[in-house]
């Protein structure tokens, strides 16, 4: 690559032709490409945060001067997903069509679509909204999720994913026995 400004006829004149040496440029590019290819992360890893939930979960005694807060609880099983709320009768279970097939996730199982609709309903329907207003007047975003025996980790993550997408951003993962809501009819 060169830039020539001579008129061509100036015999004996010093050339003002400027050459850009491409060799170091190509060397630098090759080294950069090699470095970026070596350090490249082809699978993007992210995180889903969970904290303990429920009464006294953070090590504080439950308050005695006011009623305890209500929670939405989700219990995921190998064949069905149960959703409940503190002080309310449990909702009809959602049947899982695929069960705990290895590697399955919510787009393959319509049960997760139903779960999304139900969880969004808790945030949008007027009959539920009053139950989740915090002391500062803002709607709470915490939810309890537990996994029954025979469920794979992907099922747990898919349930959490659905909860976050429905607006329940503060997810708590706890053992099934610690859920606030009743999950079976008594």
């Amino acid at each position, binding site marked *: 690559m060169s830039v*020539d400004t001579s008129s*061509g006829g100036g015999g004996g004149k010093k050339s003002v032709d400027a050459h850009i040496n491409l060799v170091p440029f190509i060397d630098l*590019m090759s080294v950069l*490409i090699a470095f970026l290819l070596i350090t490249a992360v082809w699978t993007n890893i992210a995180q889903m*945060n*969970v904290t303990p939930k429920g009464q006294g979960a953070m090590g504080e005694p439950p308050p005695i001067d006011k009623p305890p807060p209500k929670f939405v609880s989700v219990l995921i099983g190998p064949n069905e997903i149960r959703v409940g709320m503190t002080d309310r009768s449990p909702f009809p279970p959602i049947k899982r069509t695929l069960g705990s097939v290895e590697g399955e996730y919510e787009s393959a199982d319509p049960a997760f679509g139903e779960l999304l609709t139900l969880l969004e309903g808790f945030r949008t329907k007027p009959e539920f909204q009053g139950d989740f207003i915090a002391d500062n007047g803002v709607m709470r975003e915490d939810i309890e999720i537990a996994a029954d*025996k025979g469920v794979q980790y992907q099922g747990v993550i898919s349930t959490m994913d659905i909860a976050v997408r429905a607006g329940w951003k503060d997810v708590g993962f706890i*053992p099934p026995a610690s859920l606030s809501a009743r999950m079976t009819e008594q």
Partner: protein
Amino acid sequence: MPVHKPGPHLGHKSPFKYLANKHTHGGKKDPNSAQLNLTPMVDMLTMLVVFLLSTFSASGEIMMVQRGLKLPSAVAKTELERAPLLIISIDTITLNGEEMGDPRTIKDDPTDKIPALTEKLTALQAEEEAVFEPSDTVPVWPGRIILQADRTTPSEVLNKVTTILYLTKWRNISFAVEERAK
């Protein structure tokens, strides 16, 4: 201006004698000389560098996924943060690279105890809390830990491990997931 059919050599009709001489060796081809056009090569290298820089992610520095371990996938997610790493693969549980037990035996164990893991987590918690410096944004030790588990890990193992984590004051568990488009 008349339009001429292009000549066989660059600069055939050019009045610039210097260019004509330079590119065509004065009208004669040198059989021993071959010119390599570097422009497309430089273009390609530039494009590659730009693409690789745009896809560069630093999360690989924070956590390497163990060979043979398939992470669960999720749409909703947050950026990975630096924290101690607890790995549950198909045949082993490790904390910061140290083996803690076998998930296959832990799954069938009727008790909720994994003594080696409890002991190590307690020691690590004391160590981390001792060096923690409170700030305005993080006034108390957050107890953050990354849990990297295979997508087929049974819930029995997951429940036992998370219960132990909560009991040993690790209250912010970050489940490592693979980012997936909607």
